[in-house]
């Protein structure tokens, strides 16, 4: 927000602050990021600790919501199995725009140590990811840092969501497609 010296006495007690629409909207978006209550594996334990009193996500305006309709952020916390991938994608589709995704932990990032037939090798195969959070499992401080990085990213975005390009996937054939 623009910093201005406001003389409250001379302007009839009316505080004035000048800003742009983008900054105002992004200020609102970034300071009330509501993640979806959605845990997949052991990373979810760390995610729960982040939300609980010791690490206290609430002080950052981050409150876990139990419905994807009310959530802005999807934290994919843990191993995504192929059986479950369809439902993770469905939850992502049910979230309203604007929405962001944090891939939490090695398993969500790359499949991690589960180099097997039953694990999705990186959730970005099915869902566009904004922040990749390394660690096995990442500590709550790290998740808070990821959330702060996401806030930083949102503040740089345009208020008009159509102008924001989500993750582009470049293929071996050179074709580019947007994973909507």
């Amino acid at each position, binding site marked *: 927000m623009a910093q201005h010296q406001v003389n409250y006495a001379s302007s009839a007690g009316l505080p004035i602050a000048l800003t742009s629409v983008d900054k105002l909207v992004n200020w609102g978006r970034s300071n009330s990021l509501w993640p979806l209550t959605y845990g997949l594996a052991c990373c979810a334990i760390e995610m729960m600790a982040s939300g609980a009193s010791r690490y206290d996500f609430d002080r950052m305006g981050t409150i876990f919501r139990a419905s994807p309709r009310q959530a802005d952020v999807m934290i994919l916390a843990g191993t995504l199995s*192929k*059986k479950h*991938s*369809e439902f993770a*994608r469905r939850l992502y589709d049910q979230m309203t725009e604007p929405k962001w995704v944090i891939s939490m932990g090695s398993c969500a990032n*790359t*499949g991690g140590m589960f*180099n*097997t*037939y*039953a694990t*999705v*090798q*990186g959730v970005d*195969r*099915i869902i566009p990811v904004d922040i990749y959070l390394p660690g096995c499992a990442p500590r709550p401080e790290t998740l808070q840092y990821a959330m702060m990085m996401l806030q930083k990213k949102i503040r740089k975005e345009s208020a008009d969501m159509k102008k924001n390009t989500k993750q582009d*996937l470049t*293929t*071996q*054939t050179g*074709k580019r*497609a947007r*994973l909507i």
Partner: protein
Amino acid sequence: MRKYVPKDNVQAKSYYTDRFWVAPRVPRSTVEDTHFLAVVEAVGTQANETYVELGQLVIHINPKNNFEVMKTLKEKCGYTQCSEQSAVDYLAQDNEFELFWQLLNINEAKRIRVICRLANGLAIESIEPLYKSANFAEREMFDMFGIKVNNHPFLKRILMPDDWEGNPLLKTYPLQGDEFASWYEVDKIFGKEYRDIIGPENRDPAKIDTEDTKRFSRVGYEVPFGADISEGETKTAIEYSETFLVDYNKNSSKQLDERR
């Protein structure tokens, strides 16, 4: 440190094979326990072979008799719990599965393993009417091995998705999945036309290059970063700091005369 053995191409082939190595076997003994003798007598001629292994009675039966044997064991011998049931893939060796049931008698604190050999393609009778735990165990066996179970109330995959192809615990099933498995989530969510957009899975091949001196170094065989060791590396003795090591024979140390 152990003697250095060259481990060239260790992922592809075993570097050490002993022609005279025999797989260790759990010792088997004859049935002497009075309770187990009563069990063997109750099962009667349906048992092909009986012995005791690690304190557990093992009974080999024909796959056709599994329900009757299990009924005898439950109603006459007090084996009221079926703690585990599954199969072992011996298809390459014998074209057969080995099915086993692990039973528990809580009053006697005794366990029994019932084993049968089932030819590939044949079905087994469900023991779900006797043991409710067999419901999920038989579904898992069907899911993982493709062994059909007759008269099961709800025979359906339990771990893998319903539209999955292949049985993952078969020894012929690749660990990292066949083609169906590798494209499963893409096909299911986006459709097959998205395959070339999303691309194949990027998997860690876990290959170890023994001549790679940029990422690996062996203790006692350290070489400079990026050095060529295709001709072999020389052993460098490990030097220990004297100040770091504790000299327990030092005269200055004092033994306490009595416990404080």
